[in-house]
């Protein structure tokens, strides 16, 4: 059976040290899957390898029957794998509207892009109000919204989110959670990397727990929510 997205035995090194030590995971089309783990566990590194920002030292990454590891970032985006990185990846001195347009950089269907832009602005009224403002003048939550909205402008098949809740107020965190659900409802598969395990397990159908470069637990999100190990280590109970 062909998996929608699959990572097999991925290994990544940074300056000699192995940060990701043989990770395997997979996503079915339409799922929200989360990868949780503490700071430095290797979550971001896995996403960087998927997006072609960091070459893996071993292992394979497959997307819809195509092997994608070792490709450059541009061709990964072309295939429909779009990442919202930690720190949001925005262009701080460009306007909100320009950031959104750049999200659709690779798309040739100009008319559809215009329509998507209008749709996104309807969906994110806050961004519409601030369409001409520089991205750097937005609040943290608004910047995260903009980053996600810009990624949506690319019409991703698989959306990679790296700690979208980082540094946000609880209210904003639940707002972001809602947005992720809505995007998923339109048919976009989501791989959510989070330190906020409570949020992540609430959103996701399945979850992987990463510790020092290895997957230590995997399973349905609601099962993990009740597992002894996860509750102690990640939910602070």
């Amino acid at each position, binding site marked *: 059976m062909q998996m929608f997205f699959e990572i097999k035995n991925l290994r990544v090194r940074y300056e000699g040290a192995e940060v990701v030590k043989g990770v395997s995971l997979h996503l079915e089309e339409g799922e929200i899957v989360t990868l949780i783990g503490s700071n430095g566990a290797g979550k971001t590194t896995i996403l960087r390898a998927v997006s072609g920002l960091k070459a893996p030292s071993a292992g394979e990454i497959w997307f819809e029957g195509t092997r994608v590891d070792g490709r450059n970032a*541009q061709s990964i985006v072309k295939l429909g794998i779009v990442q919202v990185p930690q720190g949001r*990846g925005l262009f701080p001195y*460009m306007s909100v509207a320009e950031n959104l347009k750049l999200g659709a950089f690779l798309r040739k269907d100009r008319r559809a892009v215009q329509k998507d832009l209008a749709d996104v602005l309807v969906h994110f009224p806050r961004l519409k109000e601030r369409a001409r403002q520089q991205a750097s003048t937005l609040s943290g939550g608004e910047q995260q919204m903009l980053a996600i909205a810009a990624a949506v402008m690319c019409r991703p098949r698989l959306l990679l989110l790296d700690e979208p809740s980082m540094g946000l107020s609880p209210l904003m965190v639940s707002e972001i959670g809602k947005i992720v659900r809505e995007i998923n409802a339109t048919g976009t598969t989501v791989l959510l990397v989070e330190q906020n395990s409570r949020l992540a397990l609430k959103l996701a159908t399945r979850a992987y727990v990463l510790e020092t470069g290895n997957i230590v637990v995997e399973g349905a999100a609601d099962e993990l929510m009740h597992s002894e190990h996860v509750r102690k280590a990640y939910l602070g109970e």
Partner: protein
Amino acid sequence: MKSFDVWMQAIVNGIALGWLYVLMAMGLTLMLSIMGILQLAHGEIYMMGAFLVYYLTRREIGIYPAIVVSMAAMAVLGVILERVLFRPRPGRDVALTSIVISTGLTLILSSAAVVGFGLYTKSLPPLISGSFDLFGAGVPKDRILAIGFSVVALILLYTFLKRTRLGLAMVASAQNREGSFLKGINPNHMSMAAMAIGCALAALAGALAGSILQLHPYMGSLPMINGLVTIVLGGLGSIPGAVIGGMILGLLNGILPVMFGAAAASVAPLVIVILVLLFRPKGILGHE
């Protein structure tokens, strides 16, 4: 007491010089912010561009078509240099290698110019002859025309960066390199575009300088330094900042020699850099 005429000419000369620095600063800024390199041989591109115009005009080609051809040729040279010398390679520090490579390139190009073009100064045919009267002082028309061309070039560049897909992508990759990768923007294409545009602007600046000043193999070093000072002064990445910086620097370079002689004037840019770095390190209009 110098006559009004002399002051007026010094000011117009200064503004014309300032615009040449702005053109140089634009290219240096594009390469610095998009590619992360300090292209120290940019002044030599300016020199080569000017000499190409010189040899074209000697072959009975008009100065305007010659400038266009030279800009195009330098743009192509820029793309080749990016591909061959400045393209990042894994395991190499881009900033450091670019300084070493471009220093070498400076020596190679200026030595080649000494051998190929000779040490005698040459001059280009004027853009336009004659002068007109401004408040009773004679102002050469060619200076005004050179300023005009520079302004038009800058407006075109600004429009390109603000309005076109490629231009926006270039600005984006200057502001957040990795963020631009994740949008599917190809960094190599951006680097090629930065080099092409930068070198074309340097060729234009060189040609304009060659027509109002003189040509010689080392003509590029001063505008190169002043282009860098313009960036420091105006703030990296700010086009209005570069214009203000270029004007301040140009006017100083136009007026100070008249007041204190050439030696004192040549120190001025460096004094300015030190002052700016001490009191406002981000430049006049730069952001953090």
